[in-house]
Structure formats: C-alpha cells, structure tokens
C-alpha cells in the first residue's frame, strides 16, 4: 500500500508543526498515489482530530485512558499496533521530544527503517530518500531507506501546510485493547515559563551565546529587548551548559530547530552546531565584537560592537521608532 500515516500527539495542539506535517504527508501521499491518514493519540484527541480531519483522508483516534498522558512504552505499543494495522508505506512524525524518542523503535517494530530530522523527502522510483543535516550542520546527506515502512521524523515547521479539504476526512475511533506498560512511568512534569508562544513557533527570536558572559544580562538586557520586539528568548549551547539559562532555551543541532522571520544572535560565534538549529530562519542578524565570527557569514545584516554597548541603546532606539 502506498499510504502515508502521520502521527500526532493531541497534547501538542494543532500548531505549525502539525500543519507542516500534514502538508508534507499530503504531498508525499499524492506522489505515491496513496492516501493520507492520521493517527492522533492522547487526551483531547477527538477534538483535535476534527481539525486534523480537514487535511487528511482518515483520522484514527486513540484516546484510551492508558494513553491520556504520554507514557513512552504504552504510547509506542499503541502506535505500533495502529500503524501495523494501516500497513503504510511511510509513517511521518514531527520533531518534538516524544516523536524523536518513538520513531526508531516504531520502525523496528514495523520492520521498517527510520531516519530523523528530515528537511526533504523524495520518492526516487522504488526508493525513499530523505535529506538531513549531518556533521554538526556542516554537511547534508541524502539517506536511502532500505526497509518499509519508512518512518521519518521531520522538521515539520519548515514544510508548507496542507490544503484544507472541501470535505473533512473520516474520523474513526481505534479499538485498542491496551494494557499500560508500567516499566516506566512519568511521575512529574514541568513546563518552563516561556511566555505564551513556544520557541519553535516564534516569529522573532532574541538569542544569546557564550559572549554574554553570565546569567544576569539575559534577564536585564536581552529580555527587555525581546519584550520590545515581541520576541522569544533562546540561547546557544554554551550558555545552557554554563547554567545561565534553562536547557529549553537551547537552539542548535541538539536543541530546538527554529524557523523565525528574524533571528537576532547576540554574542554568539555561530559554530555550525548552532547554525544547524537556525538554518530555516528567514533573516539572521548578529551583534558581535568579532567581525570574523562565522555567524556573520549567515547574516543579512549585523553590527560589530560589544553587545553591552549596543543593546541598551538599541532598546531606546526601538522604543522611539515604535511610537
């Protein structure tokens, strides 16, 4: 069968990732002449499914009590069964924590092959090829998957959303006889205060790096700047490793992949691992004392100055211009 299945967690909400995933799924399914089906799990899956149904041919809802909150083993078992039943050619997931965690194991259970962080998916005759960044963002590889189904998690936000169907797809409830696998159980969850929007959804991002020098300037200098611009805050790995900001702020190869309209990099060198997280940003701009810093090679505009001198003045200017 040439169907494509997309897997969504209801808890994530119908965000840009979900839309991008559906878009990728639709194009892919069309290319292969198959249908686009969605599997939605978790509490609130049935309401969520209604929105998804506008983009897919069928939606399967699994909102059993055991799946209400994400538990790794139980959710994996459920998804594996549901996907096996659908016999797809490909299973697509977004790039969130849970999807990344599940994808390889899902591929194993379905007898297929997985690959992650895909930015492009192509059908070449019989083969499925996925492009992704490797070597810390310094190179690009095209991976050919050898076993079916192909399980791919994507940088979903950088894919164009799917066209809304004139007629919504069918929503079915899955009949799953599920037993909770309690070998692992989530006992505590914490959401960091990140304001209303999530970093991956942000359209403007203010980000700080090693050159900031400590935790205070993030709070006293950069945060007010972000507030003025309606931006989300982020940081490079160096700042997170130093404990200056929470790890959820980390953008890069092993952090968030962001797709803002404007990414303002303050005192960030621009090592390829960081650039790997912002390669889909529309406009990158930097404040850095070193004119030869690699970040500038990716910028449309920048200023070579000490951020400590620029940022307070910049806030003044922006406040004046915004009036």
């Amino acid at each position, binding site marked *: 069968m040439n169907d494509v299945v997309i897997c969504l967690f209801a808890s994530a909400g119908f965000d840009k990732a979900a839309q991008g995933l559906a878009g990728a799924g639709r194009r892919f399914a069309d290319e292969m002449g198959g249908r686009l089906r969605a599997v939605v799990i978790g509490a609130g899956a049935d309401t969520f499914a209604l929105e998804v149904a506008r983009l897919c041919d069928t939606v399967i809802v699994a909102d059993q009590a055991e799946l209400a909150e994400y538990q790794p083993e139980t959710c994996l078992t459920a998804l594996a069964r549901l996907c096996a039943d659908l016999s797809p050619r490909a299973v697509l997931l977004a790039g969130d924590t849970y999807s990344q965690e599940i994808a390889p194991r899902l591929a194993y259970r379905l007898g297929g092959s997985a690959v992650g962080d895909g930015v492009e998916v192509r059908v070449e005759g019989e083969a499925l090829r996925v492009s992704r960044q490797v070597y810390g963002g310094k190179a690009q*590889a095209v991976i050919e998957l050898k076993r079916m189904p192909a399980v791919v998690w994507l940088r979903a936000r950088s894919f164009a959303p799917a066209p809304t169907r004139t007629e919504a797809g069918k929503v079915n409830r899955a009949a799953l006889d599920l037993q909770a696998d309690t070998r692992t159980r989530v006992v505590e969850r914490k959401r960091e205060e990140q304001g209303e929007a999530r970093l991956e959804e942000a359209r403007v991002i203010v980000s700080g790096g090693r050159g900031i020098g400590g935790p205070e300037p993030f709070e006293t200098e950069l945060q007010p700047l972000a507030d003025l611009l*309606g931006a989300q805050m982020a940081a490079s790995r160096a700042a997170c490793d130093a404990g200056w900001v929470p790890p959820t702020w980390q953008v890069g190869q092993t952090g968030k992949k962001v797709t803002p309209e404007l990414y303002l990099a303050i005192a960030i060198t621009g090592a390829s691992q960081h650039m790997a997280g912002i390669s889909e940003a529309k406009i990158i701009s930097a404040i850095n004392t070193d004119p030869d810093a690699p970040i500038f090679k990716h910028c449309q505009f920048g200023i070579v100055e000490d951020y400590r001198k620029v940022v307070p003045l910049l806030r003044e200017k922006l406040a004046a211009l915004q009036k």
Partner: protein
Amino acid sequence: MNILVCLKQILDPEIPARDFRVDPARREAERGSADLVTSIFCENALETALQLRERAGSAKITVLSYGQPSAEESLRKALAMKADAAALIVNDGNANPDPLTTARVLAAAIRKLGTFDLIMVGREAGDWGAGQTGGLIAEELGMPCVSFVDRIESEGGQLRLKRQTDTGWEVLEAEPPIVVTVTNDEHNLPRIPKVRDVMMSYRQPLTKWTLDDLGIEANEARAGNTYYQVAELFIPQKETRCEFVTGETLDQKVESFAKRIVEVTSAL
C-alpha cells in the same frame, strides 16, 4: 548495580568550518587536521553514570565501543575517568554502518558482557547524529527506553530519571533493566581525569572482540546498510553577504541597526 555506557569515537566536530571536507565518493568526512575525540553526548552519559554511582554508593560501570582500533583511546579515557571495565568491538567493515547494524552489534556484545541494570548511550553521535542507536538497542534487548535524560538517581531498586522535553522536563520512575539516552546539561559536563588515573588506565585490561566473536550475522554487519544507506553526502554552498551597519559614532550605528530590525519586524 551494573551499568553499561556506550561510547563512540568521532572526528572532532569543533574544527573550523573552513577546514571541513567530505569525500563524496566514500560518502564520509575527510580526516584532515581533525583529531579523534569521544562524542560529547557519550561523555555526558559516562559523567551521568559516574555521578549516579557517587550518589548510590557503588556500581560497576563498563564502557563499550564499536569502532576502529583507535577507539581504544576513548575507552582508556573512560577508564581514566574511573569506569571499571572496557570492551572494544573492532569494526573491520563499513566504517559508517547504519543505526540498526550498530545497535545489533552493541546488543550482541552487551549480552556477551553480562546482565546490566542500566544501559546508557548518548542521545545521538556528534558526527552522523542519527539519534536511533539507544532506541534500537532497547528493542534488540527487549527493554524499555527513555530518551534525553540528564540525571539519574536510584531509590530502592528503582531508577528515577529526569529527562528534558521541548517545554521543560519530566521525571520518570523506571524498573531496571532499561536503556537510557543522555543529553547535555550544565551538571553533566564530563569531568577532567586525574593524570595519575590517565597513566593507570593504560595498565588496565581491555577486552577486544571482532564481529565474528559476537554470534551475529557478521558479514551483514560488515556491510552495514540493510536498514538504510547514505546515497549522497555534500557540503551545501551558501552565499550570504552580511551588511555591516555603518556610522561614525556608536549612536549612528545602532540607529541604522534599529531601523533594519524595524523594517523586518513591521512586515510581520
């Protein structure tokens, strides 16, 4: 408690981008001037294991690697950080095998090494970054798996795992045996070994196996491409010219900069 940590030795990922070259025919990076280092998440994993042992009072930590003979250096460094035992499976086939191959080889070696309560790998390797090995080892061994862990504690016979999520963190309780993939955090930066320990590490025994010793399909492992293969590898050319704001004074420069920002953001 018996802990096993997998390590991968890779080319130093922090060489300047200018010096990075790939061999399109062999579809791998060129060695060039890069040194060989242990992938950072593997070191985070080892550090997390060492801290767990310190908190728990005692544990045996074994380190394992599947790679070239030079990977012995990474294992010795782990011994210098006070891991207790080390084993190397020498790769005489595809130097960049697919994740399932790696997982199968490692799982076979793990079975040979004994029973473990906790198996730890880095969340992804610093070179190919597939991020699959941990999950696939768990499947091979029939164990549960939790990813992106940055801290582990043991309580009674259970493990408490703290792991990072997109929005914050979660704590999971887990029953050993379990596979865990580890990510970086301000608290699990790898410790610097004492020089004495570095010297002693060379005198410790290190088990070496070939693929034939493991009781798996050795030739299939050597091919390393039944799961997926690299069809192309290249360095994308990116041409962007940065416009540096000009001005006689700081004030003027920042004024120009502010204007450019407003240009971009007002269109949103």
